[in-house]
């Protein structure tokens, strides 16, 4: 059997999630090829060739793939899929976008968001916002799978794979990129951060999120938010942690002014250590917190910052 892994990148760097997705592929067993689809992405291809356990890097470098539009990328992956038994991508927005399209073009169903591999056809995945864990066997001849990267440890980058250019250009011509508005931050990415400080509705407004800055600076942490904080307009939606936002599993997750709704817990309850700071002693977040502090966050945050 042979496995095609879609490399997660933004045309400037290869994402660490790819290393975790390759680890999932290794657990399935077989030869692993990485596909880099993008535009002007030679540097990504070189980084990909160093990923341990990968024997070949396929590079599809064309303007049609620059923004990884699902219509174009899915055609490319479907064409390449003929040579593979498993087609795998990271369960981030790019993979979630085009992979089910690949699955349908191949007439198979997709196994989404796996957190463990039992065998080459049996996988473990959370359902019901992580409140149940399902073990699922795929009966399809080809396995189309997205991987929740927090479930796997990154492989090393000491490999030396061959780089091969892919000449096919698959432009469906039914969609086009218009613009993007990216959040700019000096902080680590939420998915990759080892410490995350998150604010919820208790922060009261966007201005108060600055109270988290000093703490995040001292801990080298990323800043996250609950849906309530995002919906209230305190912060941008790409900071949302939860069932419908980002799934994170840092070493330390500090939840400030977050009650702990099921949908939020789905995104962070696999964190190693959870700290909750909330003035409501009955808040459900305290049921999953390793360390809880019942206090007004407006007193607690400045004090915490000064003592770190």
């Amino acid at each position, binding site marked *: 059997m042979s496995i095609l892994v879609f490399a997660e990148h933004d045309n400037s760097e290869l994402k660490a999630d790819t290393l975790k997705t390759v680890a999932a592929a290794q657990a399935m067993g077989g030869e692993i090829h990485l596909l880099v689809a993008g535009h002007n992405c030679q540097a990504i291809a070189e980084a990909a060739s160093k990923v341990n356990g990968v024997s070949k890097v396929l590079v599809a470098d064309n303007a049609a793939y620059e*923004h990884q539009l*699902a*219509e174009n990328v899915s055609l490319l992956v479907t064409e390449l899929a003929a040579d593979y038994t498993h087609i795998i991508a990271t369960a981030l*927005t790019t993979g*979630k*976008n*085009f992979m*089910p399209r690949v*699955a*349908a073009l191949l007439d*198979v*169903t*997709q196994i*989404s*968001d796996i957190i463990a591999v039992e065998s080459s056809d049996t996988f473990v995945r*959370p*359902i*019901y*916002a*992580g*409140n*149940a*864990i*399902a*073990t*699922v*066997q*795929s009966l399809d001849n080809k396995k189309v799978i997205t991987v929740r990267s927090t479930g796997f440890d990154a492989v090393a980058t000491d490999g030396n794979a061959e780089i091969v250019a892919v000449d096919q250009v698959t432009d469906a011509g*039914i*969609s*086009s*990129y*218009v*613009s*993007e*508005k*990216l*959040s700019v931050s000096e902080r680590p990415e939420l*998915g990759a951060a080892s*410490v995350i400080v998150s604010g919820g509705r208790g922060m009261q407004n966007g201005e108060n999120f600055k109270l988290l800055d000093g703490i995040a600076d001292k801990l080298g942490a990323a800043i996250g938010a609950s849906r309530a904080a*995002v919906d209230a307009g305190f912060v941008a*939606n*790409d900071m949302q942690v939860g*069932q*419908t936002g980002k799934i994170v599993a840092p*070493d*330390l997750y500090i939840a400030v002014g977050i009650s702990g709704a*099921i949908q939020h817990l789905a995104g962070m309850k696999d964190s*190693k*250590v959870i*700290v909750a700071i909330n003035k409501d*002693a009955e808040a459900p977040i*305290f049921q999953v*917190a*390793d*360390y809880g*502090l*019942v206090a007004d966050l407006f007193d*607690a945050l400045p004090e915490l910052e000064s*003592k770190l």
Partner: protein
Amino acid sequence: MKVLVPIKRVIDYNVKVRVKADNSNVDLANVKMAINPFCEIAVEEAVRLKEAGIATEVIAVSIGSKSCQEQLRTALALGADRAIQIETDESLDSINVAKLLQKIVEEEQPQLVILGKQSIDSDNNQTGQMLAALTGMAQGTFASAISIDGDKVNVTREVDSGLQTIALNLPAIVTTDLRLNEPRYASLPNIMKAKRKPLVVKPAADFGIDLTARTNLIKVTPPAERKAGIIVKSIDELVEKLKNEAKVIS
């Protein structure tokens, strides 16, 4: 334009699910069910397009047993014009759901299909994309804003790094993110009116699609329990514990 909105009946989002003692699945007996929250947003968006004079007809469709008529009636009360139930008692894999929906798209020829980005039970996030592939349409997933512009639809998508706007040729498929809109409540007069709106039942078997299961659910278990934590009295104690006990900060 005609807008098609596929919806799903799922467990209410506030309910904490229990796994059955025999680990065969989660226990859905006597549990409150509702329209999937993302589907509700899809219905709302379609109804807003109608109110804006862009959509001429909004059709809701659901696949499931008779009980999903309840959610179709909800969609009708929220403003959909008519409903289609594809009747089956089986729980279908996404690819088979997409194939049934493809038949409805062929019959109804909508210009726009709006679906939720994922159902909160299976958390698959696949059906919209699969339907787009099967119908050959362009897709705008995780939409937080949509605007019709002649023969195209502009979709602003929530992506990992922020927002991305793409333009899709119509007909197209859009899947909703939570921030697309705030769904309205159905008023009592509208709920009464919804009872008289047309709802057609079509047995899944009549579509001539092979609905054989593509997956085998081996077992369902509860997630690992976190061991109970402690309540600290002060910031000093918290910092001390994080440094010396949990060793997550230095």
